[in-house]
């Protein structure tokens, strides 16, 4: 079952190469909806309390101890749902733009989906690493081909930076593999590896480097604002909505459980880094003029909060993190879509030149408001549930860090409201006069996102029921408590 969900996007991606012309958009959307259907079908067969559903073990490269192990637990299922729900939205959001070679563009998105699904299902170290790298090529091609100014230099930096990090991840996996009693890369064997002394910190540090660059956590974030800004909107949505969750997922599934003994001494420092990142990114976001850049920095701040919750190493932090992954994924995709609508119509991203859009485009103003409130963690939106739990988790670990982290909610309100005020309120000027209100396609996309923002704010239990037992189990391993 899991294999079908894994390879379906690959098949569709290959088919996409042969579809020329305008129909490519529609076939891509249908493909992604079929994949979503498959995912929902798996959800109906899914038992959140059993360890790994749809477990598949196929020997692959026997003498290296690599096998093709797939399995889905609650956390994986959550990430798969996020991926497979967002990708149709992302594909649909691009319907207005006509791109050169659009069939390749959609093929790359589907290829990316293949890699992402693989990352969230893989239960073998090398398999995980391979899928992790497979996602990198399509996103690089998307950003480098269809991106904006200076795209080649920026995306190459992004590629080399993340590739460097993931090679360290590979090294950590190899090292852990060497210490496994049964010479296998299977997740459980890696968990059982006898790591000790410097080796433990080596594994912890190398994995951290790989995941921290991907998320990104301060000070490994320098590739992120440029890449997010220059990428085509769909690329940015993929990067920020789903791809950075690979890093967070990696920390939960691979990094902390592999070296639980190192966590207790190092985790507070990691948490400190994450919190520095929150404050740092928030301050920069306040001073920016480019709307995409503001959202990019806001993403660093939000991810810093999630990371801090993970390193708090308690159930509230972890539940908050898994919830916030979904919430952030939805909100940031909405925000970048809004940035894209503004850029597409106004041909500028500089918020200081805009103003008064709310008067000419009231529908747009409403949707922008909903997504923004979600991002600002206002109660009864999805952002609130996640941030509340995260802060609770951080508080249980360290009160002072919680106080500093808590300021991020205020900062977030500052820069978000600043964007909203400068673009929506005030007098319309000669640029914003001609702002057309949303068309049907945009309304559909923004409605889906807004519904998700509100529904998850009212009924967060949908997600907690899915993840409760798996997050608890993984945390137990990460704390070194073996059942």
């Amino acid at each position: 079952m899991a294999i079908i969900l894994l390879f379906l996007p690959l098949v569709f991606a290959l088919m996409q190469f042969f579809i020329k012309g305008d129909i490519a958009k529609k076939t891509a959307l249908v493909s992604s909806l079929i994949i979503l259907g498959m995912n929902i079908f798996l959800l109906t067969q899914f038992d959140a309390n059993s360890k790994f559903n749809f477990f598949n073990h196929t020997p692959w490269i026997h003498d290296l101890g690599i096998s093709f192990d797939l399995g889905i637990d609650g956390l994986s299922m959550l990430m798969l749902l996020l991926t497979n729900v967002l990708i149709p939205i992302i594909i649909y959001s691009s319907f207005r733009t006509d791109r050169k070679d659009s069939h390749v563009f959609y093929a790359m998105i589907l290829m990316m989906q293949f890699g992402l699904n693989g990352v969230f299902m893989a239960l073998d170290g090398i398999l995980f690493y391979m899928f992790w790298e497979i996602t990198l090529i399509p996103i690089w091609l998307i950003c480098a081909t269809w991106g904006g100014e200076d795209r080649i230099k920026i995306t190459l930096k992004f590629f080399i930076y993340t590739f460097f990090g993931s090679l360290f991840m590979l090294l950590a996996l190899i090292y852990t593999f060497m210490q496994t009693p049964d010479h296998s890369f299977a997740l459980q064997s890696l968990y059982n590896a006898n790591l000790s002394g410097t080796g433990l910190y080596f594994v912890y540090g190398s994995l951290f480097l790989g995941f921290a660059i991907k998320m990104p956590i301060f000070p490994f974030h320098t590739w992120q604002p440029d890449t997010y800004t220059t990428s085509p909107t769909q690329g940015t949505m993929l990067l920020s909505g789903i791809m950075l969750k690979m890093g967070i997922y990696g920390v939960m599934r691979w990094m902390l459980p592999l070296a639980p003994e190192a966590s207790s001494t190092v985790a507070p420092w990691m948490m400190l880094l994450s919190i520095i990142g929150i404050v740092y990114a928030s301050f920069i976001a306040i001073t920016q003029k480019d709307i995409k850049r503001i959202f990019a920095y806001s993403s660093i701040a939000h991810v810093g909060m999630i990371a801090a919750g993970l390193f708090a190493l308690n159930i509230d932090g972890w539940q908050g993190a898994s919830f916030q992954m979904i919430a952030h994924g939805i909100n940031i995709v909405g925000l970048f879509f809004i940035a894209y609508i503004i850029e597409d119509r106004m041909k500028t991203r500089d918020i200081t030149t805009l103003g008064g859009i709310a008067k000419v485009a009231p529908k747009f103003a409403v949707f922008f408001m909903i997504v923004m409130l979600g991002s600002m963690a206002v109660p009864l939106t999805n952002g609130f549930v996640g941030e509340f739990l995260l802060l609770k988790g951080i508080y249980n670990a360290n009160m002072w860090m919680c106080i500093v982290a808590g300021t991020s909610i205020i900062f977030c309100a500052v820069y978000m409201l600043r964007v909203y005020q400068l673009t929506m309120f005030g007098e319309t000027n000669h640029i914003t006069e001609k702002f057309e209100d949303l068309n049907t396609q945009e309304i559909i996309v923004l409605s889906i996102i807004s519904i998700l923002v509100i529904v998850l704010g009212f009924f967060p239990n949908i997600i907690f029921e899915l993840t409760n037992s798996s997050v608890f189990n993984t945390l137990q391993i990460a704390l070194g408590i073996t059942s």
Partner: protein
Amino acid sequence: MIAIIILVFFGVLLLFAGVLNMHKSAMPIGVLGLAFALIFCFQDIDTLFLGYKNMFLFTEYARAFSALLIFSTILVFLLGSYFLSEDNNYKADKFALMLFSLSGAITMVSSQNLLMLFLGVEILSIPLYILAASQKDDLHSNEAGMKYFLMGAFATGIMLFGMALIYGATGSTEINIIWTKMLNGSFNTNLMILGTFMLMIALLFKVGAAPFHFWSPDVYDGSPTLFTAFMSTVVKTAGFAAFFNLFVFCFQNIGSDWKIVIAVVSAMTMFIANITAIYQSSFKRMMAYSSISHAGYLLMALLCTNAQQGQSALLLYLTAYCVASIAVFAIFILVQKQTQRSDFDAFNGLGKRNPLLAVVMTLGMLSLAGIPLTAGFFGKYYLFTVAFAQYKPLVIIAILNSAISIYYYFRVIINMWFKESDHHAFELTNVPLYTLVLSITSIAIIAIGIFPSLVIELFW
């Protein structure tokens, strides 16, 4: 041994074909001979002939590397008839020289005696000096031949000196006897150290590792591209196989001091080659530095603690490297022949002009860079695993360098796909034999990238 005899026989046959002006049939005859030789690499027939005074030993190790050498040469031969299509006077002779050179390479990998190793190196090198200079009207080619010859002669001298010292220290040139003497400790330590050191220098020169790499960019750049492809695959493979054979199988009892030297050389090679490659504007020179950097990675195989693992890593990495290099050189030959240019900009807009070539080129570059699902990834993976047990800092340096190498490998990909052609775009025409070579290599890159154990299970 049978493989060597066949190759030399067909080499002589090709010389006759050259005299009789049968230049057109030279390539098929050569490929036929190579195919025969390749078959014998998979037969354990040589155990019947043990009478070479322990000069040769066709173990599984030797046969595996011979097969790789012959396979690479077949691919280079298939590229040859188009590359040399304007040459109607010496075509057959050039193919013959490659066969002779190959027989030297096989002698190197199967030698069990230092003298045989020396002979192998010479048989390998002398035809190459001629081939490097074979474009007589081109100044660069002449320069390449001259440089290669002069530097090669020095290296050979040093090698022979080293061998003489080892003979002085142990009283034998047979690898088996040297090995037992070292086990017993009955040898003159000072002479032995000096001897192995000199031997090491000569071999490092042959594989083009820093600081003995200065000849290779000029030689690779100046030589006709077909022979550059031959040199960067066959010579490198033979050099490393012989290096591993001698140092890991024979000198491992001498202590681990030489390993530290190798580790330092490896790190130095990687840094020098990768950083210099970034600044190249000529594609061919970039490939020369890339080949040096791969020599740096390959040196890690010599640091293995388990010879079995080491030889698997070496074989897999070399296979991946050869296959990808030949694919890249094949496309480069097409581009160079048809646009008369050899800089990076010659590739601009290739993705539009000939997408198929661009896809294979991309695959080759990804494999050289070691991206997963290509052969190069598992090559690197094996090497890292082998060296990781004892030389962690070296592996971290290797990782750093892999990240640097992305820069220049991706430059080609970027030029092909994201830049517009800057001159009147014309279609690159595919040549049937090239299509064949490119299909074989791209299938191999992906197949090894998914099932790396195929290569290893083929032999041991």
